[in-house]
């Protein structure tokens, strides 16, 4: 199934040891989504 993010509002949970929040946000904006919140969690 093809996922479309265009027109969606997105909450982003990045990870310091994974993909950081701003990087995910950049991907989502490029996919046509509106980013409404960006967080980068640290689990250590």
């Amino acid at each position, binding site marked *: *199934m093809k996922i479309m*993010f265009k027109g969606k*509002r997105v*909450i*982003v949970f990045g990870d310091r040891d994974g993909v950081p929040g701003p990087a*995910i946000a950049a*991907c989502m904006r490029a996919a046509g989504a509106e980013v409404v919140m960006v967080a980068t969690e640290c689990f250590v």
Partner: protein
Amino acid sequence: MDMEMQATIKKLVDDLGTSDLVVVIGAADAEVAQVTAETVTFGDPSFAGPLAGVSLRLPVYHILEPEVKQAIPHDIYDEQAGFLELVADTEEIGKRFKEIRGKIGMV
């Protein structure tokens, strides 16, 4: 997910509603990603935070799922997230996230 973050999400959903709202997660560890995903979908599993007993049923995706990757321009994806594809267990992550979405009636 800490209490402050749960409170922020709850307020966001109260203000915006859940229509067209999705969550995208970037944790490299499948277990960590799953707990975060389940918290925003079914509520706080520790029953301690503001999302305890609050089932927001938000669709959750992981940035490393192949279906998510397909929705993003390749050059941007490779630059921002492609590096983690080499080290994370993308198959396991995809399986867990599909299961979670399946529980709320999404593929």
